[in-house]
């Protein structure tokens, strides 16, 4: 994992934030096992991973709150490793907001400007601007504990942005908001970050959030970056089984390779008497055990006619906001998401599932690689 992963960014441009082989052990366990990452100026990068993947540790290292064991962190060519947090000029919003409980909203937002000895008239003006941008004007005199979660989130954002930091780190900014508010705040944050043009890293465990907010997303697991790419790249070209499983809650089943086609870089696989196609990232020999991933909305089901022997039957229907999902049972159980206007197939109907080969992904099952973090 020592090669620099910088998919999407123009390669000739020097990255604004450069992480090189960043490693960190905590209590004997490697939390970060050599992370290299480039973030370009003005980028909004998502850092996506399950809990325990090392996201927060990485954020703490960039912020300067945790020392790294190996590797380097550079911003605009400057090595940050020996720089204390208060001289890094990095704005951070924390999951639990971490507002100053003893200060008003106005003084929370003005805190960073006070540290920079900004004169009172300019401070009032700049805090006023932040209050206006984030729709907090009426709340200037209130204390954090009297604010709603959404309001506290906006104060935290305003406080960090008021000093115009060169980099923004947002740690799970939506995790403590209820579902309805999350949707709205998500786009508010995107708009504000876009309008300020500040380079940002957005940490989340929620792929919808990462995809909705970010241009590029880095998937982290066990202290290693699994893949960096646009949301579309992560969905349609997952780099490994972990990314394929993590994104889009796919159908997952085991099968064995029947035939590898080098031209289309795809395989035909067989599972019991069911055969299908999937694309692969590397040549596979027949007989190799693979795991196949295919997202429900890629699975098409058709009523079986008399010619083809039906191997699947409709077991149940589930209604979702985005349509309906059929559970079909055969050699394996598959979920197939259908638009609500699609033909209804009664329970027990004989059906045949299919998908475009490039929409299914197969990865050889290897003995489990040593996980970087055991927790």
């Amino acid at each position, binding site marked *: 994992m020592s090669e620099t992963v910088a998919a999407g960014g123009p390669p000739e441009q020097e990255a604004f934030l450069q992480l090189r082989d960043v490693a960190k052990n905590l209590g004997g366990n490697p939390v970060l096992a050599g992370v290299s990452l480039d973030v370009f100026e003005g980028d909004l990068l998502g850092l996506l991973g399950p809990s325990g993947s090392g996201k927060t540790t990485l954020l703490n290292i960039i912020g300067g709150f945790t020392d790294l064991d190996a590797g380097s962190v550079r911003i605009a060519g400057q090595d940050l490793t020996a720089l204390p*947090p208060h001289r890094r000029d990095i*704005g951070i919003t924390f999951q639990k907001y*971490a507002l*100053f409980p003893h200060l008003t909203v106005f003084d929370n937002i003005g805190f960073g400007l006070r540290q920079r000895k900004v004169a009172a008239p300019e401070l009032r003006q700049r805090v006023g601007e932040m209050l206006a941008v984030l729709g907090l004007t009426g709340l200037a005199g209130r204390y954090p504990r009297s604010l709603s979660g959404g309001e506290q989130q906006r104060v935290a954002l305003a406080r960090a942005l008021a000093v115009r930091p060169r980099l923004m780190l947002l740690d799970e900014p939506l995790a403590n908001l209820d579902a309805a508010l999350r949707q709205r705040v998500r786009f508010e944050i995107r708009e504000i970050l876009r309008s300020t043009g500040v380079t940002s890293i957005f940490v989340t465990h929620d792929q919808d959030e990462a995809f909705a907010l970010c241009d590029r997303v880095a998937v982290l697991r066990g202290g290693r970056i699994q893949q960096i790419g646009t949301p579309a790249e992560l969905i349609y070209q997952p780099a490994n089984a972990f990314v394929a499983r993590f994104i889009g809650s796919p159908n997952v089943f085991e099968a064995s390779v029947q035939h590898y086609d080098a031209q289309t870089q795809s395989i035909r696989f067989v599972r019991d008497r069911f055969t299908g196609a999937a694309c692969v990232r590397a040549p596979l020999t027949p007989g190799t055990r693979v795991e196949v991933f295919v997202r429900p909305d890629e699975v098409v089901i058709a009523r079986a006619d008399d010619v083809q022997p039906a191997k699947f039957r409709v077991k149940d229907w589930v209604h979702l906001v985005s349509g309906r999902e059929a559970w079909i049972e055969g050699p394996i159980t598959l979920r197939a998401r259908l638009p609500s206007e699609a033909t209804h197939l009664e329970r027990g109907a004989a059906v045949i599932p299919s998908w475009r080969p490039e929409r299914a992904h197969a990865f050889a099952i290897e003995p489990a690689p040593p996980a970087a973090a055991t927790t």
Partner: protein
Amino acid sequence: MMRVLVVLAVVFATLPGVIVVLASLTAGQSLAFPPQGLSLRWYEVIFADPDFRDALLTSLTLATITSLLAVSLSALAAISIVRYRSRATALIEAMLLSPLAVPHIVIGIGILQLYGYFGLRADLLTLTLGHLIITIPFALRMLITSLAGMDRQIEHAAASLGATPRAILFQVILPQMKMGLLGAAISVFILSFDDVALTVFLVQPGYTTVPIMLFGMAENQVLPSIHAASVILLLASWLGVILIDRLIGFDRFLFRDGPSG
């Protein structure tokens, strides 16, 4: 049944105080309960006594200085113990808390020996040092609890906004500890103002505190003036308790489960 027990407990706890207050208000020449008529004459007597006035001044000065010093030192110690955990800070914590395991009377005898060895006389300095030893463990424990409940990320947020470690201490940590500091200061004041077991070894004729003076008076002749002086001690302690309750809330002071801030 529970009610009866509660009432009995309250009566048991308050009765001595009530009796002392009533007895101190007697108009008679000698101690009597119930009091013979009501008057403040014994308060006049005690306040007319220059020795008592000296002792009261000593007690108040001692308690105030002990309180300020114990809380300042404990606050600094608590911050390093909670924020910079290491073997060294664990050792410092254990040392500062260790007087809790030694009876005050034993500490008193030890200090008496030590002061005797160095030829130190009873004065504000020697008394304050003694009181610091017994009050710092209480203040430290309270402040460690109050700090441990604080969100470390608030300090990280301050640092990310450009606050130096010094600015974080004065603008972020200490303001958030305000209630804990106040509570510790009042507790230390009461502990110092009331202490007998240690103080009795540190005073000498001509330089004493109110509780020790009362102790001496009670050995000779029990007059209502002792009760009047006791009531003054009682009022000072009550004032502290009422202040804690008004400012912090007594439940939070004892159990520390209230919301932060």
